[in-house]
């Protein structure tokens, strides 16, 4: 009973709380990192160094008036943020944060579920989030959100192909779809896959930037062009849900990249015995650290680069990334068969 019901439920609860907190602080981190890049201080007022700013933000978003435009499609309008958020959170179920660990005397793996199609599960669930984006824009019954949601969905659909292709080459390397087994295979080979597949990582990362609508691919919410994007008409808690989902998706992308390319919970250079003392640090800390670094790169890129234009984005996706990804799959397949 404890094994089958309570432990997973506790895990889910811990995970949800953790993710929501992480998202809240990711927003703060983004503001801080941007501020530092731009030679200013960022939020400083709420708590020491603005550390309580997320709390203030959440309170503000919750108590704000929640407006539904008069001619919006009420049901869909309400449903859209939920559709966006739920997949973003559900995906975390299969991400292994660490190896089997003793927690309060119970030996358990640090993931909610290890299903044998883990990677595909992530891809397919994540692809559902797009409905929220499209419907949010459509249901607002407003032109700018509609344009933005079209951009968003076209962008998501086309970059998903490239991202999935890179995942295929990772599957070929690991010989499994299970997230845990992918990490274990990296352990067995003593090699982070990023060193074997730098191109795949690059494509994955660029595609990830595009899929999460981050700069320089933040066209769907380019506020200078579309006054905010598909959630222009949203306010209050529903807007917060969109926001939450966006940052949760960022964490997903970073966490998956960590698992696939950076050896998940493994320490750096897992095959070099001389670095054995690094094992003192528990695996989940390694995992979080790597995810954090990747997230930092997300923010860094945003503070540095201008924004692509819609057609250029499409061209990059279809004419550069997808052919590269396919070529990568073929080369990987040949290499796997030959070696």
């Amino acid at each position, binding site marked *: 009973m404890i094994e089958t019901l309570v432990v997973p439920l506790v895990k889910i609860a811990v995970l949800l709380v953790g993710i929501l907190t992480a998202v809240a602080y990711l927003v703060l981190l983004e503001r801080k990192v941007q501020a530092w890049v731009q030679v200013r201080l960022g939020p400083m007022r709420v708590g020491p160094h603005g550390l309580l700013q997320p709390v203030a933000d959440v309170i503000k978003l919750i108590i704000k008036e929640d407006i539904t435009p008069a001619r919006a499609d009420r049901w869909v309008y309400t449903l859209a943020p939920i559709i966006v958020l739920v997949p973003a959170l559900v995906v975390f179920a299969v991400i292994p944060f660490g190896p089997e660990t003793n927690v309060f005397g119970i030996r358990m793996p640090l993931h909610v579920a290890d299903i044998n*199609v883990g990677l595909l599960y992530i891809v397919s669930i994540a692809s559902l989030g797009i409905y929220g984006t499209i419907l949010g824009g459509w249901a607002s019954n407003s032109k700018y959100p509609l344009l933005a949601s079209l951009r968003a*969905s076209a962008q998501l659909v086309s970059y998903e192909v490239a991202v999935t292709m890179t995942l295929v080459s990772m599957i070929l390397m690991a010989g499994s779809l299970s997230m845990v087994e992918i990490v274990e295979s990296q352990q067995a080979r003593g090699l982070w896959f990023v060193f074997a597949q730098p191109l795949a990582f690059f494509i994955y990362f660029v595609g990830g930037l595009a899929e999460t609508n981050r700069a320089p691919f933040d066209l769907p919410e380019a506020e200078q062009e579309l006054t905010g994007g598909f959630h222009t008409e949203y306010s209050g808690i529903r807007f917060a849900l969109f926001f939450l989902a966006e940052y949760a998706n960022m964490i997903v992308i970073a966490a998956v990249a960590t698992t696939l390319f950076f050896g998940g919970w493994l320490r750096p250079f897992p095959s070099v015995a001389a670095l054995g003392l690094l094992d003192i640090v528990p695996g989940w800390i390694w995992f979080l650290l790597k995810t954090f670094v990747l997230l930092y790169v997300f923010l860094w890129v945003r503070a540095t680069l201008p924004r692509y234009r819609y057609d250029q984005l499409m061209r990059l996706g279809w004419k550069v990334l997808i052919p590269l990804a396919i070529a990568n799959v073929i080369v990987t397949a040949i290499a796997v068969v030959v070696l």
Partner: protein
Amino acid sequence: MTIAFYTLAAFILALGVLVVSTKNTVHAVLFLVANFLCVAMLYVLLQAEFLAVIQVLVYAGGIVVLYLFVVMLVNLKRGPETHVDPRRRDRMGLLIGGAVLAEFVAILLYGFAPRATGAAPAAAAPGVGNVEQVGWSLYVDYLVPFEVASILLLVAMIGAIVLAKKEP
């Protein structure tokens, strides 16, 4: 397990009815997505996780998105009703309905007929993953039909592009 199955089945049927009965096409597409998700859960119940995931990925995440695009973008105003024969639709409906009904009846008859070979589908060998089984059967047992189907789809895709492409 049985309860789960019947609940899901009820949901699937109800959503299917909603898809055809809703006036608002966007809502209909939404119900369709929900329908597909329920079907995917059904697959999970059957322990066919790979199929379930593919169902979500391809149908719910891919194809229906395109439907949604079309429904949202194409003007929803009804085109001119050009039915010369007002009864034509009814006759067509009857025809198709009859065919579907016959199919159902055939399935039912077949389903309730005493099984000749009972244990054929349940050959899930332990240790071999679901994915591998699908892979084996697709790429070894049914390689030719699979490739033919892919080429057919490719042809269809190219044809659609050619048709849709504006003349320079």
